[in-house]
């Protein structure tokens, strides 16, 4: 298994040139509230630093903005929450495996945390249960964490259980952390899309024998759980864009539902009426997810491809920091 972290670093250095990287660092630093007030030293301002940290007097003397740096009273904790069931082994909107995008996103944020001396942990799992990789601060730890996501997310694995992972976080941790939730295009409001929604696909291809409950699709409303988590932790939300279900596939390959292994017959996917409704629904879904999270106060982004990862995460941190609080 090739190491995953170098790829993350490469992505960072290719996509984000130095200035952007500085910004990323600034935005990342500002994520945490409740800093210690032990003043350490001054350093030049970089965009993304909090305005209230600017030392105006020193700035006036110096001629360019300077911000105060404080001694971190303790290390911050970043907890990456990702469901590693079969949903993650599916294909994303760009055709890359969703797993790869999730690893890139987790890697970039984890690496930022690592560079700031913060600790990174991982809650991952599927319908068969959740696993915790405790907080750690080394690059090796981060690499191991990414490897775990990579190894667990396969088509041979268990079905997904996203809610299960959030439940686990809610029950397990007392300490305030930065929760990086990596989700996908599932409905958060539980607007009836979850229960038995895949039945049509499975029975159409005669895979009735495989019909089962779909733990990965939340049948219930996730909002109360999210509100509770948001009250306890800092939260940022990364949605990995799911594949377009009505787009043409290479060589007309069938689409396979990862939960039920039922096929989506091409005949149904090319129906003009279905395509129209799907397009409407997909747009509505995107807005809906974002609105729900905005209303709770969670900054969110939707990543469609590897190239998206760094710029979108940057904007995500920016939005998180400037959210009214």
């Amino acid at each position, binding site marked *: 298994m090739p190491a995953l972290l170098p790829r993350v670093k490469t992505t960072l250095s290719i996509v984000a040139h130095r200035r952007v990287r500085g910004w990323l660092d600034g935005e990342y630093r500002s994520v945490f509230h409740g800093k210690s007030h032990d003043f350490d030293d001054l350093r030049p301002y970089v965009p993304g630093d909090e305005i209230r940290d600017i030392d105006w007097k020193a700035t006036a003397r110096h001629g360019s903005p300077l911000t105060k740096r404080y001694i971190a009273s303790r290390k911050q904790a970043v907890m990456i929450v990702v469901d590693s069931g079969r949903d993650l082994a599916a294909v994303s909107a760009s055709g890359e495996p969703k797993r790869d995008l999730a690893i890139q996103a987790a890697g970039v944020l984890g690496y930022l945390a690592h560079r700031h001396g913060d600790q990174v942990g991982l809650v991952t799992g599927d319908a068969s249960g959740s696993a915790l990789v405790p907080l750690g601060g080394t690059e090796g730890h981060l690499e191991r964490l990414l490897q775990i996501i990579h190894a667990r997310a396969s088509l041979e694995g268990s079905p997904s259980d996203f809610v299960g992972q959030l439940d686990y976080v809610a029950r397990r941790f007392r300490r305030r952390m930065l929760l990086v939730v990596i989700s996908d295009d599932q409905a958060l409001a539980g607007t009836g899309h979850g229960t038995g929604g895949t039945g049509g696909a499975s029975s159409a291809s005669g895979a009735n024998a495989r019909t089962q409950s779909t733990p*990965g699709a939340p049948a219930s409303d996730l909002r109360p759980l999210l509100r509770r988590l948001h009250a306890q932790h800092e939260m940022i939300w990364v949605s990995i864009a799911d594949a377009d*279900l009505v787009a043409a596939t290479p060589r007309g390959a069938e689409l396979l539902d990862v939960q039920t292994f039922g096929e989506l017959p091409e005949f149904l996917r090319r*129906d003009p009426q279905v395509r129209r409704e799907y397009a409407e629904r997909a747009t509505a879904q995107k807005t809906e997810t974002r609105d729900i999270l905005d209303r709770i106060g969670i900054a969110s982004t939707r990543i469609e491809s590897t190239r998206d990862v760094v710029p979108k995460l940057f904007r995500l941190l920016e939005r998180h920091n400037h959210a009214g609080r």
Partner: protein
Amino acid sequence: MELSFWWMPLLWAFVIAGVLALAFVLTRRRMRRRPARAAVPVAHTERLTALPAYRRALTRYRALLALSVAAVVVALAAAVVLSARPVAVSAYQPELRNRDIVLCLDVSGSMVDYDAEIVDTFSDLVDEFDGERIGLVLFNASAATAFPLTSDYAFVEKQLSELGDKMRNADEDYSFANGTLLGNGSSLIGDGLGSCVMRFDDIGQERSRSIILATDNFVAGEQIVTLPEAGEFATENDVTVYGINPGDVASKSYIKDLADEFEKVVADTGGAYYALDDPGAIPAIVGQIQSEQAADMTGATQIVKTDIPVWPIVAGLVGTAGLMFLGWRLKR
């Protein structure tokens, strides 16, 4: 309706059951291997499957699949029925159409009117002939073959109608009778009938042979064979002689003996004898001879099996066409 190969459906049943079992096993094995290599794994298909339009499309899809199955069943059923070869069985009594008829006409002066009528009647009858052969012999002192036994009906009809016209104008042109006056005397009836009997070829073949002999049996000269002798010769060769005698009427009682002799000869060969005065009665007599023969000549009852493939073929075509259309609809 009956099936020629009654065991065909059984064979089909075995083959179809075998194919279905094989398909079932292969499908099961493929499903156990789960993710197909070529398939694209996607998550949250409820984004698509929960759409009302998808539900409607799914209903349509299932209907098309059901119709396809129905089309396959129809085509297959048609194939099964066709391969079993359905036949209609009927019994029928064949009317033998293997008659040879020689018209044996005495062309002595008194007979010409009657001859013309006989010729005309046969000219009309030729239309109905199918398989029969007809020949024409004219005799007086000697016998001349106008045309031998043939089934070339166009030719026969042409010959007969031409001859009929000539006979009606016999006063001007008697050339149609050329070659009939080479014997010793005239109206040598026995020689004429004997010659006519000799016109039948293919003696070995199983055919019905009959002669329609029109004469008044008024012999004037020295015959080689007498009429009774010629009659025996006909019987030996299985030839039936039908006699038409315009001379056998009360007004010509002086030839009563001749008429009796004629009638007896004809009766001995198994034929019928008609005495008449009026040429107009000829068509009726010929019709009578025809029907009398027809009664004798129906063959043994035969069982006939006729293929009736029309409905299975139509069903097969409809099924196959339907299947192709549905396949196109589903793949388009």
